[in-house]
């Protein structure tokens, strides 16, 4: 068996040191080693987006990142979104506009939506749809997800 590697990753502002096999993915470490099960694994091949996280500012699928790569890097997951207190406008709008049904895709979608609004505060409906094309949802038909993101964006622009 390959010797485990010692990795130091900052997750949601907290530094974590852990051991992992070289081929273990970031989603595996987040969920099983660090017990942050908010990030979900729907496919393991980068096709569903349920494992979306932000690594050093980049929106990525954590099933396609090796944990060893995140040594010295900073990861944001859904658990860090509300920052220990109030829900963000994105989270609140999803609740108020019923932007979630079963909720399994929701963490990935919220992270992806946050990444979008961080770089483009006023996206059009089409831009939101294409940005979220990597996040599969089977319950909602996407309608209320898109509306929730657009409403949150409007709220955040101060309208």
């Amino acid at each position, binding site marked *: 068996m*390959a010797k485990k590697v010692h990795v130091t990753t900052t997750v949601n502002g907290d530094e974590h040191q852990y051991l992992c*096999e*070289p*081929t273990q993915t970031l989603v595996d470490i987040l969920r099983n080693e660090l017990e942050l099960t908010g990030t979900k694994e729907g496919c393991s091949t980068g096709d569903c987006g349920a494992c979306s996280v932000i690594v050093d500012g*980049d*929106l990525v699928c954590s099933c396609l*990142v*090796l944990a060893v*790569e995140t040594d010295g890097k900073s990861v944001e997951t859904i658990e860090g979104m509300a920052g220990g207190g109030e829900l963000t406008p994105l989270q609140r709008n999803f609740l108020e506009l019923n932007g979630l049904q079963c909720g399994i895709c929701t963490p990935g979608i919220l992270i*992806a939506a946050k990444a979008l609004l961080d770089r483009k505060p006023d996206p059009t409906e089409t831009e939101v749809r294409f940005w979220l094309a990597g996040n599969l949802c089977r319950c909602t038909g996407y309608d209320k997800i898109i509306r929730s993101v657009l409403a949150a964006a409007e709220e955040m622009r101060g309208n």
Partner: protein
Amino acid sequence: MAEEGYAAPETVDAAVSLLGGADGDARVMAGGTDILVQLHTELIDPDLIVDIKNIPELRAITEEAGGFRVGAAASGMTLMDHAGFNAAWPGVMEGVSLIGSIQVKGRASIGGNLCNASPAADSVPPLIAAGAVANIAGPSGSRDVPVGDIVTGPGATSLGPGEIIVSFAFPARPAHSGDCYLRLTPRTEMDIAVVGAGVNLTLDDAGVCIAARIVLGAVAPTPLLVSAAADALIGTKVDDAALAEMAAAASAACDPISDKRGTKQYRIKTAAVIARRAAEKALERARAN
């Protein structure tokens, strides 16, 4: 997997040396969006993964000789955010922006897309159409190879043992040039191309086509540079008749398979349609500058 299993060198020489000196199967990892899928579906079982993303030249995007030099492991998103490159090469960017989702593009690179050598790779046809040149580093030193000579078959490249692509050089754009990449997929995103076409055109001041490169993807074991299609446009004003001849040449050049993404007949037929539409768009861009 060997003891270390994973290495992240910080220089090209270190990477080449690791690849050359590895016991067993060593694989280059750029964005990891192909290699990690292959690893976890047990299609590959490397002894060593060499992560090249920490090598500055592999990520840099710089202006050079009127054109651009793009690090082979620069992520798709980084390229998408580069205004200058986008303005010069909208067709290459169309290919890049179709590589998976935003999440995948947060990692995937044109170097990885090329070296994975899927016949349906989206950034490869416009890269070849652009005339990009790959700068390769290896045990015997460095060499430059046109991108069109890299892919030799599905999953196979002309890179020798221990060689990695460091960067791609994109030439300066002559006036009245435009490129475009279009592909056919059942959904709007997230599919593998059934047919892809990258077209790069240059016109003279009178609007006559003086250079053309038409490259088809997903219709043969490798991307196809169709010179007959280019010949149909060169010397013409790229009118409907010329486009129709080009499209027919595109279909004629196809040598596709039937698989779960499309039948042979469907690909041959639609290659003409997609090539024509890509050429029309490239033409529009060429006429606009």
